[in-house]
């Protein structure tokens, strides 16, 4: 029985543990291995081979395994721009396969040849296509542009340059919050904000908070208390004088005690009690928050249920 082999997406097989000497047409698998990496990171053991592209024509011709355009196209489908765009002209930049639409890959044989203004060809391939990769590559590192001796710039591949593009910071903040609202909240890993709606039963309008500004449940709950305190005061308007500030302990009682329960809707659409999972897992899966009235939260918060029952 043959040893089962692991194949990666483009069909290159791992070198067999035993026996067979590599055929003379075998590729240097380590070099051609597709790996995920942050933009700008270069794996040290990669070297370009005599200035010829790893995907150069000669290799392509020799290729007698599944390493060809087809599977590559499938792997990177979903994004729109051709690989060639990344190399052409901006060949000063490292390669980023920004994916290729079927059309682009089809018409650009250039996909497999190097083009660079300075003849540089970074053999590092940063696959950035697809959502799965996005989670690995969080935000691009902010680096100053480096310069080489002859005055032209050799920037890190697609890394963020200080102050470029020239956008004012107040504008960045505005757009970051509003665009993250429009796109699917959890796939926007690079934007640094995670705005979710927060509703409270009985309140006339909702609020929005950026989960990324908190690092623990305690911070979140105190922020929510502050935000919604005006409504809880309203609830108890008869009991308090108009200008009396609700003490922190009373507020905590209101929110943590018998009246309210903090819940969230996760990616699957289920309503969950806040606090069960680690904070990071929570921020990854939380789509919206709801401050529920205690008695509505039956099944979510046993403690609340008991209090409800005991009050009846």
């Amino acid at each position, binding site marked *: 029985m043959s040893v089962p082999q692991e194949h990666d997406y483009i069909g290159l097989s791992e070198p067999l543990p035993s026996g067979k000497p590599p055929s003379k047409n075998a590729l240097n698998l380590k070099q051609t291995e597709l790996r995920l990496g942050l*933009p700008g990171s270069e794996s040290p053991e990669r070297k370009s081979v005599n200035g010829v592209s790893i995907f150069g024509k000669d290799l392509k011709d020799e290729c007698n395994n599944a390493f060809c355009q087809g599977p590559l196209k499938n792997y990177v489908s979903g994004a729109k721009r051709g690989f060639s765009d990344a190399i052409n*002209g901006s060949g000063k930049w490292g390669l980023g396969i920004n994916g290729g639409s079927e059309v682009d890959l089809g018409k650009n044989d250039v996909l497999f040849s190097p083009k660079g203004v300075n003849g540089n060809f970074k053999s590092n391939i940063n696959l950035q296509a697809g959502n799965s990769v996005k989670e690995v590559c969080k935000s691009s590192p902010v680096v100053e542009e480096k310069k080489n001796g002859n005055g032209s710039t050799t920037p890190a591949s697609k890394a963020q340059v*200080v102050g470029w593009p020239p956008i004012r*910071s107040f504008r960045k903040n505005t*757009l970051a919050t509003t665009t993250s609202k429009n796109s699917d909240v959890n796939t926007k890993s690079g934007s640094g904000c995670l705005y979710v709606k927060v509703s409270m039963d009985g309140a006339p309008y909702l609020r929005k908070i950026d989960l990324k500004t908190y690092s623990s449940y305690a911070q979140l709950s105190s922020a929510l208390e502050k935000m919604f305190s005006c409504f809880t005061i309203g609830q108890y308007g008869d009991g308090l004088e108009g200008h009396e500030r609700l003490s922190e302990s009373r507020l905590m009682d209101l929110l943590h005690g018998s009246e309210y329960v903090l819940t969230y809707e996760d990616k699957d659409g289920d309503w969950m009690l806040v606090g069960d999972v680690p904070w990071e897992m929570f921020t990854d899966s939380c789509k919206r928050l709801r401050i529920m009235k205690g008695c509505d939260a039956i099944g979510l918060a046993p403690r609340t249920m008991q209090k409800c029952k005991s009050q009846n």
Partner: protein
Amino acid sequence: MDPDPNISDDPPSNSASSPFPDEVLERVLSFVDSHKDRGSVSLVRKDWYNAERWTRSKLFIGNCYSVSPEIVARRFPRIKSITLKGRPRFSDFNLLPQDWGANVHYWLVMFAKVYPFLEELRLKRMTVTDESLELLAKSFPDFKALSLSSCDGFSENGLKAIAIHCRNLTELDIQDSATEDVGGGWLSCFPENFASLEILNFASLNSEVNFDDLERLVSQCKSLRVLKVNESIILDQLQRLLVHASQITELGIGSFMQELTPRQHEDIEIAFRNCRKLQVLSGLWEATTPYLPVLYGACAGLTFLNLSGVPLQSGELAKLLAHCPNLRRLWVVDTVEDKGLEAVGSSCPLLEELRVFPADPYDHQHRDGVTELGFLAVSRGCRKLHYVLYFCRRMTNAAVVTIVQNCPGFTHFRLCIMTPGQPDYLTNEPMDEGFGAVAKTCTKLKRFSVSGLLTDKTFEYIGKYAKNVETLSVAFAGSSDWGMQCVLEGCPKLRKLEIRDCPFGDAAFLSGQGKYETMRSLWMSACNVTMKGCRLLAREMPRLNVEVINDEGSDDSQADKVYVYRSLAGPRRDAPPFVVTL
């Protein structure tokens, strides 16, 4: 070659006796408003110089370090309105360290002594502390208008002082303040019957204000014509404000995010419709699609629509623009894409200014946004276009050539191809011909920002043709010193030159030696200028301040950031340690 005639200390001499008595001259001069004209007037002869200085009431200082408060106080005895600008523009993009300077305090100390009747103060890119605001509030009983654009350093305490003490305040205009949270308590500090406000803009301050106090303020200030609220104000609150202030001409909407009842929806539609004088609309953060139509009733007279805070889609924009036939200025986010810009081209024939901002400037995988096609579509439909700021990810020379053929009247052409050094995406050539066409065709061009892959050829074109250019911004462009030299030799009206990440070195830098005194300033960062070159310039030109900021851990012989500007005040007395004046 002469230093700024506005601020020069030396009066011209008299050649013959004056044909006019002083009173007549002063009366005539009191109608001359522009500071440039006044500068010219002051150069004619000594009595004109004196008449001018006695009648000048508005002071404009484009670079706060070009002159000292003492010099200003000596020359102009009767100033009522002051505009002061501080940091160089590239500080907006984090190229300048914190605490670089431009603190207004020492100016205010002088003003408090010399100009007790000061009425207006407009500051841009300056640091304004609470202490300064308190000094301002207490020193000028007639004070009317405060405008802070891109300023920092203050908190709500400073604003409270203004609200409490400035009894005649007509204008409080805070724009683009991006710094730490300024609390909202100041709004509640206006006196009980305060009614003089005409302009109130706190849109860029993030904190919540007390709505009841705001409502009271708005209802009392019957002359209010500009109201720009921040995003803590939601739609139904805005509706209540509009009921009191239907006379406004400029409105900055707060947050559009709210789930409205049908009744609320109707109320706000009516409120907008009743704002018949509305000319300017902005804000609209988190505008949700269903509610955009409530605005339609307010759009008939709109001349300026600022949607730069709300990422609309093309369809939404098209529907909105159909209601704005009088639009002259439009700011949008590139989520509207080329299709949205086609709608602009077809709906806005009177358009004069277009700014398209990127929704995701740092996301290199972002394939959406606008392209050369959108720009072309606008240029075809909006022949009066003269101001453009356009962020895109691809462009072609052919498109730019066609665009300026369609709209040869550009005065401000700021095109930003967001990937540095990117060529024409169809031909792979540099963008020289495109930008060259702009220089050639747009004879009235005053402000020019270039981008993409550019060789010295672009700068040859600029030097040869762009004779009216006053502000030039260059990044990641050029091939050699020759490029910069072409500009320095060829552009007689150049006032501000800002350069980053270009291969221009000492030869080019020093070739402009004679020119820099005719300019307001030069900024060069991440170029090839050396400390030696800077020292040479400083030595040759004593009336220039040559300041260098070096980044941590960089080569000591290179000058990472160079800021050169003419000055009558000598080297800065308040320079922080990282700013080296040579």
